C-alpha cells in the first residue's frame, strides 16, 4: 500500500492505495464519489472523464498514485442539485441525456474542452492552424467531444447544451 494524498473538489483526502487502483476506482470505491461512471474501463467511452488541474482525462486509465497532489474535479465538484453549473442546467434544458450514464463524463469533458478552446488549442477539423481565433462551430464541438460516447444517442442535445454555454 502506498500513502496517497488526493485533492478532490477542494478537499484533501489521505488514502492508502495499492498502485493498481485506478483514479476512477479511488474516486468511486474509496471516496464514495460515484458521480464519475465506469463504462468501458479502457479509455474508449469517456464516461469516467474528470478534470485534473483543469484538464480532462480518462480516470479509468490513470493510476491513482500518479495523481497525488493534483487538483482533481469530479461532477460532484462541478455542481449540486441545489446549485447547478450552467452547463448542467443546459443539459436539462436541451435534452442532453436520456439514461444519464454518460452525462457526468460529457459535462466534465465539455468543461475541459471549452477551456482548451479558450486557450486557443486547435482540433483535427480546424481549417487554419495558424489562426489567432478558432470559431467553436458545431463541427468543432463534435470533433472535440469525440472521446465521449452516448449510447442513447442524445448527441444533438449535448451539442446544443455546449453551444448555449459557449455563447
Amino acid at each position, binding site marked *: 500500500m*502506498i500513502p496517497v494524498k488526493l485533492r478532490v473538489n477542494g478537499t484533501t483526502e489521505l488514502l492508502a492505495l*495499492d*498502485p*493498481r487502483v*485506478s483514479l476512477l476506482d479511488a474516486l468511486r470505491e474509496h471516496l464514495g464519489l460515484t458521480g464519475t461512471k465506469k463504462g468501458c*474501463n*479502457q*479509455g474508449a467511452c*469517456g464516461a469516467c*472523464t474528470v478534470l485534473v488541474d483543469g*484538464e*480532462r*482525462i*480518462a480516470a479509468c*486509465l*490513470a*493510476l491513482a*498514485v*500518479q495523481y*497525488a497532489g493534483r487538483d482533481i474535479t469530479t461532477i460532484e465538484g462541478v455542481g449540486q442539485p441545489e446549485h447547478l453549473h450552467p452547463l448542467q442546467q443546459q443539459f436539462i434544458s436541451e435534452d442532453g441525456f436520456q439514461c444519464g450514464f454518460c452525462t457526468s463524463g460529457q459535462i466534465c*469533458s465539455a468543461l*475541459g*474542452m471549452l477551456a*482548451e478552446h479558450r*486557450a*486557443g*488549442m*486547435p*482540433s*483535427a477539423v*480546424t481549417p487554419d*492552424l*495558424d489562426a489567432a481565433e478558432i470559431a467553436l462551430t458545431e463541427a468543432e464541438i*463534435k*470533433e*472535440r*467531444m*469525440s*472521446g*465521449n460516447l452516448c449510447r442513447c444517442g442524445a448527441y444533438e442535445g449535448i451539442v446544443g447544451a455546449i453551444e448555449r454555454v459557449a455563447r
Partner: protein
Amino acid sequence: MRPFGYLSAPDLPTALDAVAAGARPLGGGTNLVDLMREDVERPETLVDVTALPLAGMDELPGGGLRIGAVVRNSHLAADRLVRSRYPVLAQALLAGASGQLRNMATVGGNLLQRTRCPYFRDHAASCNKREPGSGCAALGGLHRGMAVLGTSEHCIAAHPSDMAVALVALDAVVEVQSVRGTRRIPLAELHRPPGETPHVETRLAADELITAVELPALPVARTSRYRKVRDRASFAFALVSVAAALEVRDGEVVDVRLALGGVATTPWRAREAERLLLRAPATDETFRRAAAAELAPAVARPDNAFKIELVQRTVVATLRQLATERSSAERADGTERSSAERADGTEGGAA
C-alpha cells in the same frame, strides 16, 4: 491486474537506475495500463517518469526543436511553433485518440505504444508478439486492419501511431539515456520490422529511457500535411495515413518528405517515392508513379488489399493539395501585401 511495484522518479538519475534495474517507464498510462489490465503487459515495477524535468520544449540553435519525452500530446499539438513550422506534426497529433487521451499521453509513450492488432490482446489466439513462437492468428484470421509493408510470415501487425508517422517524415532524432550514457537514434531506425522476432519492437536496450525527440530545422515542413483515412470521422486508428511535406518551384519538386501510417509494421518513411519525386514535375502523374513504386513491395491478404490502392490515392491527394497551397510563411507575406495594396487603393484599381 497482477501486482507491481510503483516508484515516482523525482529526478533523471533515479529514473535511469530504476530502468536499469528492470522497471518499466510509465507515462500517461493510456496504452500500458490498458494492456496490464488485459494481462498482456506484466511489468514487475513501474517507474513513473511524468514528474521528471522532461516536459519542456526548447528551440535549438539553427531553428530546430527539442521536445521533452513527457510533453503531453495535446500540449505539443497546441504549441504555436509546432503549428507554424511543423503543421504535419500538429495535425497528426490532433488526428489521434481523443481529447482526454491526448491530455494524458506523452511523446515517449506514444513512440513505444503497442499494436492494436486484436490478436495481440486475445489470450485465446496465437500471437508472436505476445508469446514468441506461438504463431500469428492474423495470417489466417481477421486482417483488414493489418500492415502490407514491412511484414514477415511471423507478424503483420500495423504500427498504430499517428505522431510517429509525422515525426519520421520530419527526420526526427530520438535521444535516449541510460546509466551508461546518452545516445541519439534517428526515429527511422528506432522501430524494428517484425522479421523473426516480432516481440522485439525497437532498438532500445533494456536499460534505456527515451528522454527527448529533436526535430531539425526543416523549411519544407512549413508546407506539410497529415491526412488520415479511417472508419469513423474521429477517435479511430488509421486505415491508411500520409504525412507529407512538399516544396515546389517553377512546377518542379525541389524538396519532399513522405511517410505512411496504417499500412506498415513501423512508421514508414517512403524513401523510394521521395527519390522519384525529387526534381520531377509536380504533377499527378509523378505523384502516382512515386506512390506506386513505394507500394511495389507490398504484400497483402484478401481483406487488407484495399490499403495498397487507398494509400496510393491518399498520397496523390495529399501531394496535390500541398502543391497547390502555399506555405504558412508565404501566406503571411501575401496577407501583408494585400493589406498594403488595400491601403493605397491599388487592389480596387486593379479589379
